[in-house]
């Protein structure tokens, strides 16, 4: 099936089987491997990308459903080698350990701060409850989100 998807600002044509998932397309066809395949069933949030600005799980979206839409992945965040404030805050606050969940967390954080520029801790924890971290824990992640919010004001 022929699709056109704007990925990280650049329109691109694809020819895929109907059962291709957006995650397959991003990782295999585009080699954008920052987006992770975690649980594959919508529990962990490691595959979070933005579709038309909304955080969605790439492991549960058919690629055909992204036809004509804008998809943004973690790779689209930095400006060259200049990290996005959210990325920098995650590093500064020690919110990254093994790093597998980090791209998903950062994409969810970006969606959160676009909707709510100064979230409370409760709002942060509620918004990020679809992203799981199994090593760092959530305390430093919450701090990173707060630090990023402060910087982005």
């Amino acid at each position, binding site marked *: 099936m022929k699709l056109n998807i704007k990925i990280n600002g650049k329109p691109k044509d694809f020819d895929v089987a*109907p059962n291709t998932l957006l995650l397959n397309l991003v990782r295999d066809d585009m080699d954008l491997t920052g987006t992770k395949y975690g649980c594959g*069933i*919508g529990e962990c949030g490691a595959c*979070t990308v933005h579709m038309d600005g909304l955080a969605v799980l790439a492991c*549960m979206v*058919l690629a*055909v459903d992204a036809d004509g839409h804008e998809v943004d992945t973690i790779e689209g965040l930095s400006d060259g080698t200049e990290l996005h404030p959210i990325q920098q805050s995650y590093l500064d606050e020690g919110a990254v350990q093994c790093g597998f969940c980090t791209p998903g967390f950062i994409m969810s954080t970006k969606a959160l701060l676009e909707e709510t520029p100064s979230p409370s801790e409760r709002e942060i924890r509620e918004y990020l409850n679809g992203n799981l971290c199994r090593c760092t824990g959530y305390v430093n992640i919450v701090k990173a989100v707060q630090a990023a919010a402060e910087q982005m004001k």
Partner: protein
Amino acid sequence: MPNINIHNTHIISDFEYYAPETLQEASKLLKELGKDAAALAGGTEVIVKMKEGSRRPKHIVNLKKIPGLSGIKETSDGIEIGALTTIREIETSPLIKEKYPILYQSAKVLGSVQIRNRATVGGNICNASPCADTAVGLLSAEGVAHISGPDGERKVPLVDFFLGPGRTVLAPGEILTSITVPKMAPNSKSTFNRVARASMDLATISLGAVATMKNGVVDDVKLAWGTVAPTPMRTKDVEEFLKGKKLTDEVINETAELASKSIKPREKGRSNGPYKRRVAKGFIVETLSKLRES
């Protein structure tokens, strides 16, 4: 064909894909393809089931190219919510939050933000899971399902829509197009109680309540439950018992007792019957105490 799903064992099976652009076309396709077909809305249920292997549809009929099935509209006697409206759209709608708070309360607890951005209210209803959160909210708000099919259109009150786990009144080729909800009394109070193991888990048990008080007694009340029976359900006997009563401690305790007998949970399993009946009592006490204080 690209080599897909090389990353893990969750294989999504191959299927024929259809994206009809009218309701008539979609109905015709779904009727012809029968049991081998699955209708696709947000995909947060059907795609997971395909990955887990519990469903292997040979045909996927994507409903999202059909215009007019999405969005929240205020009408003269209430609101109409298109079947393809996402749960997140319901959660973030100022109109719903202000005038239909029970729908807001039951939408915001479903899954995660990412799931709510894709999952649709029509999908949540048509999957007919006993724990469907929006079904509980819509049942207590007296929602009505609007259905379009090969033989025309019909309306079914949601209370009559569910037949069993995963089973609804939808006949082959019939499609849920929207849900209408009548205007809620401005002085009505809405509460939503829910227990789950972790915040984004499916509900172990839930209760949506909409009630109005008049001169210190219960004027009207609707109680809808999730995961206490094979389908989301109302407990009309409990509602009738409450009408006209002053909410004394005694009445609240009697109501809790009655509710615990009125629900029909599975006796066995991890959250068994005795547990759910106990939680149900707690929900009733909490709900009615709040109502009394309001």
